[in-house]
């Protein structure tokens, strides 16, 4: 849950997606700027944290990189519960991984936090020749489901930082703003009237 301090926000972010879609690689690229061809399979989940500065605030991402295999699904709620954001990753060269991504979106919509910022990442965008999922299709799906969509490549680093920055920008922050601003609005005209009468 994004807890808003004055300018520092801690945001829990969870990565979900099919086996080998590149969740861990995305995180590794974002957090350490590294890429390895064969990333060790993630068992259960792995944790990372990284801070980004957006406009006037800093967002500290607490990133849970989950295991992709079907059966680890049963552990996923533990990690996406209370998350402020999620990146659902699929492999553009693998149609099945896109179908799986849709399932994740459904599950998050049904069981996750309703204010969760969700991003759809079509990973391995460097594998253009092997493309199986058209970006238009994914874009349309993302729009229909209120996600934002980017094609990323952990290998070339394309759009990796961008997707995290975009999430950071969309995080609901300063949740208490409505009250103070309301008070100010009520107070100001009165003051102005006073001063006006004084001055004239």
């Amino acid at each position: 849950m994004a807890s808003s301090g004055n300018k520092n926000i801690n945001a829990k972010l969870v990565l979900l997606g099919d086996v080998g879609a590149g969740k861990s690689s995305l995180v590794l690229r974002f957090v350490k700027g590294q890429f390895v061809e064969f990333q060790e399979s993630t068992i259960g989940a792995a944790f990372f944290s990284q801070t980004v500065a957006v406009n006037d605030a800093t967002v500290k991402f607490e990133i849970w990189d989950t295991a992709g295999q079907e059966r680890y699904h049963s552990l996923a709620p533990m990690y996406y519960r209370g998350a402020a954001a999620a990146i659902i990753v699929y492999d553009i060269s693998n149609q099945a991984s896109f179908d799986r991504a849709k399932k994740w979106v459904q599950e998050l919509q049904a069981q996750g936090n309703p204010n969760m910022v969700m991003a759809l990442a079509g990973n391995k965008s460097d594998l253009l020749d092997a493309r199986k999922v058209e970006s238009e299709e994914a874009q349309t799906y993302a729009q229909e489901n209120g996600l934002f969509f980017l094609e990323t490549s952990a290998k070339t680093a394309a759009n990796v930082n961008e997707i995290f920055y975009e999430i950071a920008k969309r995080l609901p922050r300063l949740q208490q703003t409505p009250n103070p601003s309301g008070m100010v609005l009520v107070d100001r005209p009165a003051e102005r009237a006073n001063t006006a009468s004084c001055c004239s």
Partner: protein
Amino acid sequence: MTTVRGAAAALNPAPAISFDHKRDAYGFAVRPQHLQRYREYANMYKEEEEERSDRWKDFLERQCESAPLAINGLPGNNSAIKSNVESTDSTADDSSNNGAEAKHANGGKPDNLSEENKEAPSASETKVHQVKIWAEIRSSLRAIEDMMSSRVKKVNLIKNEPVSGMRKKLSPIEEARPGKGASEEDSDEEFYDLERSESDPNLETLSADAIHALDTGVDSHATQPESLPPWKEELECLVQGGVPMELRGELWQAFVGVRARRVDNYYYKLLAPETNLGSKNTELDDRNRESNVLESVGVPEKWEAQIEKDLPRTFPGHPALDEDGRNALRRILTAYARHNPSVGYCQAMNFFAGLLLLLMPEENAFWTLVGVLDDYFDGYYSEEMLESQVDQLVLEDLVRQKFPKLVNHLDYLGVEVAWVTGPWFLTIYMNMLPWESVLRVWDVLLFEGNRVMLFRTTLALMELYGPALVTTKDAGDAVTLLQSLAGSTFDSSQLVLTACMAYQNVQETRLQELRNKHRPAVRASLEERSKGTKAWKDSQGLASKLYSFKKDPGSVIIGSDKPEQSDMQMNGDVSHLDSLSVDGDEEIDPVKDLKEQVVWLKVELCNLLEDKRSAELRAEELETALMEMVKQDNRRQLSARVEQLEQEIAEIRQVLADKQEQENAMLQILMRVEQEQKVTEDARMFAEQDAAAQRYAAQVLQEKYEEASAELAEMEKRAVLAESMLEATLQYQSVQNKPQPSPRSKQAQQSNQDHSPEIPTRKIGLLSRWRDRNKDPNDEKSLNEGQKLSPKQDNTNGHEVQEKV
């Protein structure tokens, strides 16, 4: 046999492997941030390792001496140990040969005899099957193995019932591969014995009678090892102190009871379809890895793609996992998936199998994996991962109880222990701790034969790092710290000894109680979730249900039974639609009875409608409840706000009052000051007025004085005038009465002093003088002349007066 040696050499890291700067003694990559610490500990590990091998050597030697019938075999065994220590390559031959000799010599025990019988064929078998990669462990460990194997038997005996119960569930798969299921389920060591005695590699010929005979045989068998414990405690200590590297592979096999588990040829049978598929596989590699060739193959083959994906992701870059190593890994994982289709392949097994392959030949690794997964971690890596979740709840209980302060802090930060410990348990600490520590934990875990060591290790880690964790300020920091601290637990002895000594009271029986306590809740939530996923199922799911129903001939009772079964399968497959559709397709009977379909659909529709209605009602209820809660919440918030505001107002009032008081006080002071000022001002004014008055008075006096002095002057003039007049008169008189001038003048003077006679004369004189002045200036002149003259007279007069006075 040469193939055996080759494979063993390829996969077993030589104990004296050089310390690569990025890889540890086992060939595993060391993380860059840990390199420094690893180097610091590398020497300690070496020392420990030396100590350890001495202690074990000593123990094993004594073991052999004390073995009741081993006197003849002693020299042979001893030489075996020596040769083992010398080189691992030759052990495969030596130990089996020596073992065989020793057992020949023993002869006395019936089971030893049978073992000896077994051994001979197994040795010959290895020569017959060229691909076979299997080696007996050295005979010096036989006693340990026997003791441990007794555990295997017992577990399996107890397990018999649930296994047979499970078989019903698995029946569709058995149908797919007739005959094989039977051998799978009863893979007890009994077959092993029997098969040896028959020396018939064909398992499928086993009759039910044979199994019976074996069961009874086992009972007597099982009681025997109970008499062994005197050295068991010593062994336990040794294991906790660590297992020497060159014995580790074999000791692990002994702990798991590989020889007792092994069913001859079983592994190859499992891989049999692989021979066709194997060639296909290499093609697959060359072509495109993710092309879906698998639908046509049997159900377990759905794992094929996943296994294939994970092969290069298992210890990437490890020198031993070259192409041969990966092929072996693929075979083991595939064989296990076929051996236990209800579990299939689960990520994490690739790491276990990889590790085992590094320590032992392929088939040994397979049987060890089977032992670990089927016994130690039963229910852990299955589709629902039920036991894994149960264990996390149990662990949370324990951590909560042992480290209340730490848990409080973690609760406060919003950190769940299971986030971190879940992966610890699932990987059995692989990749979570430094390798030396992982292996030490595995030593104890495999020895103990249950998951207790998982718990003890986590508790030890919490004990070691809890104090640091309590200082963290947010969830991210806490998790990062715990991960990195665990990752740098290089002091493996400290860890293992803390785990085993400080948490000795964490026992399997207690864990079982706790597991039983938590299991229903986990199961319930799993069901809840699978219901949720079921709701998302598209028509395909329904169709598979329909067809599974249709397969049974019409009767309602069976009909209601069957869907349940398929439900179970679906729950198992947790929303995996692809696999579902595969299952469904398999069950689809090409013959379609439309009527039945319609009936079934109607029933299903009714059910669904009812479900929907109740769900809607429930939703409404929940919504109103939610509204109520929100309202209450709002009210509470509002009242809290009001209270707060009121308090603020009161405070402000208080401040205001204070201010006013202060103001009053200031005013008073000001007034007083003002008054004083006024007073002083008045005083000043008075003083000024006084001064003015005085000045005025002074002036007046001055004037008066001047006036007076003027008058005086005039008077004097007048007096002078009068005198002169008097003189003049006197002179005149004296002129008239010359004879007696002086006495008269004296008299006149006297009369002047008397005033009375003087005044009229003066008056007359004055008047006349005035008249004279006005009438006749000449007179005046004369007067002036007279006056001019007078001073002289006056002077004389004065002299005279003075003389007279």
